[in-house]
């Protein structure tokens, strides 16, 4: 069975290429900051499986330290507007073929790879299939894009680096938040919060408990940035003992809508960086919270809807 290490090394090689390209960019006086930042990230991706935890931690801190000083994006060597317009006219809808190859190959891989057997055993573990397919999709897209545009190979590095520079430190933020979640779990933060909620709010009415549970799921997700982290804590602390145990609610309805209430927290928090902060950087928005602001009304209305559905159906 093939694990994810090959894909991690591939991703690491890409970031190493960005780092090296920064290193040779003599027009950029602060190029060493960018070289160091992307270089450390590349090392962590490629060698993470074999590095001792403490050394990985030191590398992470060094990378964050460089980001704190301020990264220095390199000079942008992409084409100008007129060239791009001409190229768009020349290449036409073939451009979409290369772009859509990524999701199509990812989808095909997700469906087909589980059936790829070697000596009767699956070649990839089921939980890795989506990520392996995504990597296959990216590689296919890259080959098509190079062939289509006729660009030399090093342009792939230059153009990828341009996008990585525009996203900057937000590239590693989702992973750092996941690390924070790990520390929260190790330190028992969730249990403390659940105890606090239980001790401060009088929960004698069945519908009050539902409201505390759904809003608690959303709030805890806002703090942790992830409904998955909130669910076990809130459900073990409030859901199971009170909604199911004390008032006889249906655990399936409670869990499904509880999780969805957490999903209403995700669009409202900068802690869910992957969905909220990274897209703002990717789309070059000046307000880092612009995406969150657009999402808040929908999220709040849906939180109300989830709470109502649970109040009406959990105690049937």
């Amino acid at each position: 069975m093939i694990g994810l290490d090959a894909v991690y090394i591939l991703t690491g090689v890409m970031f190493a290429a960005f780092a090296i390209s920064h290193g040779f960019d003599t027009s950029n006086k602060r190029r060493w900051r960018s070289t160091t930042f992307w270089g450390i990230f590349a090392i962590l991706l490629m060698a993470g499986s074999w590095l001792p935890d403490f050394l990985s931690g030191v590398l992470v801190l060094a990378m964050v330290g460089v980001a704190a000083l301020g990264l220095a994006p390199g000079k942008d060597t992409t084409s100008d507007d007129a060239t791009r317009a001409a190229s768009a006219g020349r290449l036409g809808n073939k451009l979409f073929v290369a772009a859509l190859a990524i999701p199509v190959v990812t989808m095909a891989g997700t469906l087909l790879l589980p059936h790829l057997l070697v000596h009767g055993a699956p070649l990839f573990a089921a939980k890795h299939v989506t990520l392996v397919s995504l990597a296959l999709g990216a590689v296919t897209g890259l080959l098509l894009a190079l062939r289509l545009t006729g660009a030399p190979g090093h342009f792939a590095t230059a153009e990828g680096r341009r996008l990585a520079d525009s996203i900057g430190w937000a590239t590693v933020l989702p992973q750092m938040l996941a690390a924070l979640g790990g520390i929260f779990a190790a330190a028992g933060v969730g249990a403390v919060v659940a105890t606090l909620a239980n001790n401060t709010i009088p929960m004698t009415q069945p519908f009050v408990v539902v409201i505390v549970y759904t809003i608690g799921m959303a709030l805890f997700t806002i703090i942790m940035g992830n409904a998955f982290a909130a669910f076990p804590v809130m459900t073990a602390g409030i859901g199971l003992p009170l909604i199911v145990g004390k008032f006889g609610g249906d655990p399936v309805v409670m869990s499904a809508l509880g999780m969805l209430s957490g999903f209403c927290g995700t669009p409202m928090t900068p802690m869910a960086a992957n969905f909220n902060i990274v897209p703002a950087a990717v789309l070059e928005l000046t307000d880092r919270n612009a995406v969150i602001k657009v999402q808040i009304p929908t999220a709040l209305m849906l939180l109300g809807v989830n709470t109502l559905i649970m109040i009406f159906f959990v105690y049937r």
Partner: protein
Amino acid sequence: MIVLCGIAIVIIGFALRFNPLVVVTLAAIATGLSAGFDLVKVIGLVGKAFVDNRFIAIAWLVLPVIGLLERGGLRERARSLIGKLSGATAGGLLIAYLGIRQLTAMLGLTAMGGAVPMVRPLIAPMVEAAAERQTEVDSALRQELRAHAAATDNIGLFFGEDVFIAIGSILLVVGFLGQNHISVAPLDVAIWALPTAVIAFVIHAMRLRLLDRRLAQRKVKA
């Protein structure tokens, strides 16, 4: 109680708009120390957790593809395609994308979207081009339209994927209830995500219709 200091650091740090990467790192270290671990152990925990979550970074593999295609004029092409569709509006396009995103996510195809492969090169330029026919688009409105494109991508994903039985959140629910001696099938849980998915579409589509109406009213003013 003192282990909550990490949460306080995050809230204060984000409110004061410090670099989030630095804030989160400090919060992780403070939480670890306040839980009684020594510094070497905390740094090790940070390193291990960062490395354990490397799968998140795999999505960045699309950067060179999108960069190359942008250089080749992908965004310009997406814009001109919408220019030919005379009936297309910014809100209408986003409603169609919302529906497609929800339906594909319900089938487990959560990778059929995202900010880098989909929104930046395709959806955002199309929405901007459509809006330019509805009204005059200044820089502030352009930013708002892009934020709407990213938000629609998220809403479609979040309230579609939970209907799919093999998605992480459903498996977490089933596993968690199982640990507490309540045995349920994934489908029983997923079916209860369906009403919220439908209402999410209705609510968000209504907001996008309002966006269209606002764009139309701007035109009258100008």
